[in-house]
């Protein structure tokens, strides 16, 4: 599948905070229609990498290519302008607003000076239906009344609303039960199947093996491996996460230069 043109490509990204060198020559590729899992232990640099992609942290050096073109991303606005959406772990939904209001928050559709509620409700309904979201009773129910899984669903659907090309998901299943995790993973798969490039950050290898097409493992700020999911076993990925190398992985860049 790697012959398709990558949507987002990072080459040799470095990022330091003062004397702390957090990311060393990191390469990352996200393909359209694929779920790329970003795994790594605490402190491996996953969050920093996501924030660098989202434009929250400026990168020190390295190449940021989007759709094959080199781009400069200096802030969150640049990233969302390219079609990159981030769903953070704490979701950022307003509990006092309903689902439609949350999905369009900050980007309300208007009819002159007035809110265009009818179009917003139709579009929200359309997006939820296209992602086969079935667990939401009504698009006009307030977010406070939703379960954790449903909130995650709304947050992901919100990111799909804007014809986004790349969606970064930060630990979407971290706080969910078994059935809810199932629903969210199905949603992630459907999102990718619709042609979006998805980057899934997760600690849970079961989830990763279930839904990801490729796995990028970070170890102490370096890429330990970038492999197709079908080529590795769970044990090998654990080795990559904990030691940065695995004896029998034969993907490209199988070991990090520690």
């Amino acid at each position, binding site marked *: 599948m790697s012959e398709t043109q990558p949507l987002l490509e990072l080459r040799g990204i470095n990022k330091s905070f003062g004397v702390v060198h957090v990311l060393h020559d990191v390469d990352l590729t996200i393909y359209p229609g694929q779920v790329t899992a970003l795994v790594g232990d605490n402190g491996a640099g996953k969050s920093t990498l996501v924030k660098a992609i989202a434009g929250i942290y400026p990168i020190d050096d390295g190449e940021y290519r989007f759709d094959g073109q080199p781009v400069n991303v200096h802030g969150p606005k640049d990233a969302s302008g390219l079609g990159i959406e981030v769903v953070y772990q704490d979701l950022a939904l*307003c509990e006092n607003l309903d689902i439609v209001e949350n999905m369009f928050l900050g*980007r309300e559709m208007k009819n002159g000076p007035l809110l265009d509620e009818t179009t917003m409700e139709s579009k929200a309904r359309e997006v939820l*239906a296209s992602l086969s979201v*079935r667990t939401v*009773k009504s698009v006009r129910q307030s977010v*406070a009344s939703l379960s954790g899984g449903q909130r995650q669903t709304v947050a992901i659907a919100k990111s799909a609303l804007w014809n986004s090309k790349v969606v970064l998901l930060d630990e979407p299943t971290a706080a969910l039960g078994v059935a809810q995790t199932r629903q969210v993973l199905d949603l992630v798969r459907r999102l990718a199947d619709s042609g979006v490039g998805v980057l899934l950050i997760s600690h849970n290898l079961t989830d990763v093996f279930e839904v990801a097409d490729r796995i990028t493992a970070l170890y102490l700020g370096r890429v330990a491996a970038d492999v197709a999911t079908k080529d590795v076993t769970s044990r090998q990925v654990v080795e990559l996460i904990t030691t940065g190398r695995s004896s029998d992985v034969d993907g490209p860049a199988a070991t990090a230069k520690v």
Partner: protein
Amino acid sequence: MTDIITDSEEAGFASDRTQSHTLGEAFQAYVNRVRGGDMGALPAILGLIVLFIVFGLANDRFLSALNMANLITQAGAIIVLAMGLVLVLLLGEIDLSAGFTGGTSAAIMGLAIADKGYPWGVAVLAGVVAGAFIGLLIGLLVSKLGIPSFVVTLAFFLGLQGILLKLIGDGGSVRVDQEVIRGITKNNVPVMWGWIFAVVIIAVFAALSLRSHRIKVAKGLQHQPLAVVIARIAVLAVILLAVTYVLNLNRAPNPGFVIEGIPYVLPLVIALLILLTFVLSRTSYGRHIYAVGGNPEAARRAGINVDRIRISVFVLGSSLAALSGIIAASNLGKVSTSSGGSNTLLYAVGAAVIGGTSLFGGKGKALDAVIGGLVIATIANGLGLLDQASYINFLVTGGVLLLAASVDAITRRRRSATGLG
């Protein structure tokens, strides 16, 4: 991929019904919402009805047309101040200085007319601009320096008393006898125009409600049954026509005189109510106010300029406080050094909370201020008629406020238990 979403869950989206089919179902849904803790203004409306019955039985003058007109002029200033506080409370902030903002603005308006001889329009504008400026300062201190609004407005509460003293002079007062200003509370809309206003408002409300209902049905969006829409129009019509009828009666205590018509303050309050309701529920600015009140971090990430919303809300709130001060001055005929002091502010906060606005932010409507303000004014008015010592008035008002705050806290807990918004 195995799919363990069960059939019943599959049907979950099918139950995204765009309509509660019958009036009965809609009523049942409403009962469920109330039992789940989403009461809105219901306790305040019930309280108002109880108060009217109790005071009506206790004193036969309470329900007279003269007293109803009095009640409305007394409630006017409280309601307008409470509207400003509803906006501030929506953000989860508080404005303790709103009372003295009103007093100071009214003093500036009074002095502009009495000392400088400016026309009333310029004087009112000067008062409102002064209020807006005070709000701007508060908003900047709260949002840019990050001082809690409780502390900032406590400082303004003290400071503005000083400014009011300096403007008016120790123990003095400014007479407000300009005809138009006095007329806000003392003059009445001609009977004919009163009826026309009432009918026009009902007709416009009915037309807009029915139109929006038709569009929602046509596009297959979520909507209420037609019967509920019509019931709502009917309730509005009955209330407006009844109020207009009572206020259009001749209420002069002495035969030979004629006092009739709606006091001008009522159309003023209604205009503000419509304007604020419109801004809060139909514009993205209003939506952003709710968002900042509900979750400022989510609002910030959604690209909303949270500081700008905070500052603008304090400016609006203080401008409404200025208007309220002017209405109070119109009713009293003067501005004194204690204008906007004592319990003015607490009455207004009480009105907002009694009406159903949450002290915790993110929940409230402009209508809350009107209903809550009527409750507060009714208590003061009714107890006054019963010749009760003023200590009773304080005790009862305090008790009602405590009751309202308890309702807010309890429903909030229930809401989080049942998961309603």
